Every structure is written in structure tokens, then in C-alpha cells.
């Protein structure tokens, strides 16, 4: 019997990152229709950081959450409507209740990979409302497989019906994925999923390894439309899974058509792997650091890439801007010392 894979498509959520959350009403309608026609099982929509996240901190969304949910719901019948939320940005009363009302089917409740306990009440609320709740662990490369399992188990105990790990920095190699997914599959009694990013060109092969290790939910976006270097490219995923004999329920020709529609609809088009994306993936550091790192590189006259790698060694996470200065200062001091030594020798 063919292995069944549930594809969840966050093109209209993660893709919003690629256009600073400026996706238009027309884009939502066009892509919802294309995904529906292709038989995509779950279409995830919203601001790039999820419901309730439109803000001066991470960027204001062109459309309100209400508008996005209403137009998506109108254009999806067979495909289920999904949303992403991060507690701390959203609340049950203001955001989740609204989404339940608007007819959202799948609620993906996310936290940084070591902070699962902030999702307790949100997952509980969704389950009580009779909707489907998945737990999502972001930046999952920053935790060991054992810690990830511990955090995933917390989400399972709150009522999560699946756990998805995100490779937010695009840092995984296939063996990292195999190790983590198999640890989760062995330790949990609910389905496990993988959400890839393409910083090192590994998103598709990582997703294949995830499936081989027992994952049954895979995230992908059309044309790889998403944050930074982009996500796992959905139409490639569908083609590869079809060749491997996995069942996704998605029509290959129609998802290829959706890719054409998306190219016309989303402007600028699909993200590519920039030099910065590669460094960010190798270092395992959030690419949002680019700006402050660029400033520090100039201020201290050190290579931006050296700062990224040093930040990776210190397990830097977003919000630790002060660490960037510290790292740049250390690198500058090291450089001075080396030049000093060379000078003496000369």
C-alpha cells in the first residue's frame, strides 16, 4: 500500500514574509483557487508570523486577519483552511476565537523549540472548540533530539494532534532530520511533520528523509515562496513523492499550473538562495540578523560572514542584538592581535 503524506501548504502565510506581508486580496483569491483545484489538503494563510502578528515590530500586514480569513474561506471548500499562531503575539480571545468563528479547520500553535509550555491553553482552547490543533516547534535545530522530544511531548499532553518541527534557519542536513524525526516518531503517539527551508538547497532532500524516518506531514510552498531563502518547493515535492510512490492526493499537472499562476501573481517572484542565506544556513542563525550584523561589520571593520559564524557558535537567537556588537568587537580585537604579531615578525 502506498504511503500517505499529508501536505500542508503555507504559501499564503510564509510567503507573506517574502513580500513584507503585502500579499494582495487578488493573490489570496488566485492562489486559493489554484490550490483548491490541485487538491492541496491544507492551505495555511495569514501574516508571515501568524494571526495577531501584524505589528510595527515584525511588519504590518496589508490585509487584516479578518479579511484574509474571510476571502480564504470563501475560496476553499475541499482544501482545509489552516492558520499559524505564536502565543505572545496572539491571544485566545482576540485571535483564536475569531478564527474559530471564521471557520478555520487546522490551527498550528507554534513556539520556539524550547518554549512549548506557552502553547498549553491555546492548544486546549482549539481542541475544546472541536477544531484540529497541531503543535509547531520553531528553530528546531537549536535543540537536541532529546529536548525536542520532551517539548513535543508537552504539546501532545496539551492535546496537539500532530507535531511539526521547523528548520527555520535552513540549517539541517539529511542525517539531522532523520535523527530528530525518528526520535519524535518513536517517542510520540501522534503524527510528526517537517517544515523545511532552503538555505543550503537541502529542503526537498530533507523532506524525503523526514518521510523515510516516519514523518507523515510535510510543508511546502509554491515556487518555494517564503521567508529568507524560501521554503521546500511544493511542486517539486509533489513530483518527487509521486515518483517515489508516496500518495499526496495532489494533482501533479494542476500543482504545476498553480506554480505558473503564482509566478504571475506574486511579485517579486520566488526567493533565491542569496549568499547571505547560505551563510545564515551554515551558521544556523536567523537571517533577520542581517541588518544589525551589517552595521556591526562596518563599525568594527570585520567580515559580516565571520560575525554570522561566531553568532552561530554562541547559539544566538533573534533579540540578542547586543551579542552582535560583542562578537564583532571580539573579532576586531583578534584581528588586531594577529596583525600586531605579524608586524613584530616582519
Amino acid at each position, binding site marked *: 500500500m502506498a504511503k500517505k503524506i499529508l501536505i500542508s501548504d503555507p504559501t499564503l502565510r510564509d510567503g507573506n514574509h517574502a513580500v513584507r506581508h503585502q500579499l494582495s486580496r487578488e493573490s489570496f483569491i488566485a492562489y486559493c483557487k489554484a490550490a483548491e483545484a490541485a487538491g492541496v489538503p491544507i492551505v495555511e494563510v495569514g501574516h508571515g508570523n501568524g494571526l495577531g502578528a501584524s505589528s510595527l*515590530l515584525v511588519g504590518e500586514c496589508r490585509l487584516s486577519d479578518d479579511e484574509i480569513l474571510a476571502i480564504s474561506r470563501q475560496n476553499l471548500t475541499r482544501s482545509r483552511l489552516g492558520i499559524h499562531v505564536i502565543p*505572545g503575539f496572539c491571544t485566545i480571545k*482576540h485571535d483564536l476565537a475569531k478564527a474559530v468563528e471564521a471557520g478555520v479547520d487546522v490551527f498550528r500553535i507554534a513556539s520556539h523549540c524550547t518554549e512549548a509550555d506557552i502553547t*498549553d491553553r491555546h492548544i486546549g482552547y482549539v481542541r475544546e472548540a472541536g477544531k484540529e490543533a497541531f503543535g509547531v516547534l520553531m528553530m528546531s535545530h537549536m535543540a537536541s533530539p532529546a529536548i525536542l522530544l520532551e517539548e513535543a511531548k508537552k504539546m501532545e499532553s496539551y492535546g496537539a494532534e500532530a507535531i511539526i518541527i521547523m528548520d527555520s534557519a535552513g540549517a539541517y542536513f539529511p542525517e539531522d532530520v532523520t535523527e530528530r524525526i525518528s526520535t519524535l516518531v518513536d517517542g510520540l503517539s501522534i503524527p510528526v511533520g517537517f517544515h523545511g527551508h532552503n538555505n543550503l538547497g537541502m529542503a526537498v532532500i530533507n523532506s524525503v528523509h523526514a518521510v523515510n524516518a516516519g514523518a507523515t506531514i510535510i510543508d511546502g510552498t509554491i515556487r518555494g515562496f517564503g521567508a529568507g531563502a524560501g521554503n521546500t518547493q511544493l511542486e517539486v515535492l509533489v513530483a518527487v513523492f509521486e515518483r517515489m510512490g508516496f500518495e499526496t492526493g495532489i494533482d501533479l499537472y494542476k500543482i504545476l499550473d498553480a506554480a505558473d499562476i503564482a509566478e504571475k501573481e506574486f511579485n517579486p517572484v520566488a526567493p533565491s538562495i542569496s549568499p547571505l542565506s547560505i551563510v545564515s544556513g551554515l551558521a544556523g542563525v536567523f537571517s533577520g540578523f542581517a541588518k544589525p550584523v551589517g552595521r556591526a561589520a562596518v563599525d568594527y571593520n570585520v567580515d559580516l560572514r565571520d560575525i554570522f559564524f561566531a553568532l552561530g557558535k554562541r547559539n544566538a537567537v533573534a*533579540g540578542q542584538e547586543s551579542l552582535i556588537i560583542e562578537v564583532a568587537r571580539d573579532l576586531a580585537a583578534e584581528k588586531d592581535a594577529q596583525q600586531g604579531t605579524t608586524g613584530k615578525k616582519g
Partner: protein
Amino acid sequence: MKTAHMTTAKKLKIAIIGSGNIGTDLLIKVMRSEHLTCTLFAGRNFNSTGMKRANALGATISDRGIEAIVNDPSICDLVFDCTSAHAHAQHWAVLDKLGKTVIDMTPAKLGEFCIPAINADQCLASGTRNINMITCGGQSSIPIGYAISRVHADIDYIEVASSIASRSAGPATRYNLDEYIETTQDALQRFSGAKRTKAILILNPAHPPIDMQTTIYAKIAQPDLPAIRASVAEMVETLKKYVPGYQLIVPPTIEGDKVTTTIKVLGAGDYLPQYAGNLDIINCAAIAMAELIAKSARSIESAHSVAAKEA
């Protein structure tokens, strides 16, 4: 002998319920205060880290929570409720009947919102017995929003985003994230008069832990930057009187259509390390209020005794 007794008697008797991070840090601050004395530290479990610490410090401890006060109401004058928003609703019903004054450290928002730098005197004058300390992010960001509103009464939108070290957020804080957001937003609106407000809290798991940092964004048509800067600078000086670790990192700066200000709070390092400025600021604010109550109670008392003599 008699004088010594008098001095002790004059201190306001404090009960702390909740033996988590907030409660334990408050205990250390109360013990250091000239005006306050801790007469009860009540949690639920003698083996918790906070209880052990309180015991080592020589505090009177109980594992009966609020029942410890119900069983002996004379044990305290004022209660710091350091439990959770949910528990506070029940606690207040009990403590109200007992006639206790309560400083609520949870985001339950049953009582009067209090930011000492803004409305300490009004809170005292109102005679309210339930004083709500809003949230840690509220104590750090609302004074800035208020200082900006002194210059511009018609702010369209204020957003406050706080990052705190994951290790400084205990189980109740994590469980109360929604209440944190709602309470901070409500209080921000109340004190700044902004049409719309938004609060964001990010738990940052970085090692070494990050210091508490808050950025305040205000959307204002034609901001008067020099006046805003002067008002904010004055507010920062007022805050520093009771929160020594409060620092302006980025003074009000115009970025496009908004004015951005960033502040940081370094804790005193009493119970948790310095990075936990979030615990420190709300606790410093609570201590400031309790000390004001102690002083005012003393002045009322001495006024009474003068009146008694004259009679």
C-alpha cells in the same frame, strides 16, 4: 527596649502568597526595607526552591497558601499576591472580606491599575484596597507611552514589544501570556489615551540570557521630537528613583511615521540574576507602593495619637 519595640511595630506587616520567582524576590526586597516587615511567606510546597530560600532567610513560612491568612488574619496588614491571574480572583474575594489591602502582582486586573511614576498618589487617595501592578512589560513601557502622551494627547497607535529571558519566566507567567497581553494593552490605552494599543511578549531562550528590553513604537502625526525627548528623559529620572536599573537605550527617534524608543531594565540581582529586569521592575514598583502605604498609615496613626492627646 520600648523604643525598639515601637520601631518594629511601625513597620507595615506584609504577607506574600506565592513562592515563585516574584514572591521570593519580593521577600528579599521587603526584608531590606525600612518600612516593611515580612510576617508570612506562604506557598504550597515546602520543597519548592522559593520556600527553601525563604526558610533559609528566616521568614515565617507556610504551605497552606491563603488559608494561612484566613486562619490568623492578624498576621499581616498588606498582602502581595504573587500567584496567578486565575487564583487572584478567589484570593481577592477572601482578602476583601478580611479588610486587607492587596497589591496584586498578577495580570488579573481586578483592582486599580498602578504605575508609581504616574499615579501613586491618586491610588493612595482613592482608598482602593486592591492595587494592580499591571505587568512587568507594562511597568517598563507605559511610563514612556504616558510621557509621550503628555506632549501629544492624540496618539493613533502605541505598540510595546518586550523581550525577556526565558529563564526569568516561571510557570505562572507562561500560563498567563494572554492575560499579560490583554492587561498591558488595556493599561497602556488607559494611561496614554492612544486610540489603539498592542503588546507583544517574546520569551528569549538565548544563553547567556538576554537582559529585559522593551521597545515602544508610537504612531504620531507630526511629532515634536525635542519635547518628546524632554518628557521621556524626565520620566526616566522619576523611574530610576525606584527602579535603579532602568535605562534608556535608544532615546525617542523618528523612523518613518513612528517614534521609536528602546529601554532596558537591569535587575538588582536579588533572587534571580540581573538579566531578570522584568521581575525587578514590577517588584520595585510594588515595594514603592507598599512603602508609601506604610508611610501614610504611620502619619494617620501619629495624627490620631496627637488628636487623642489633645482630647
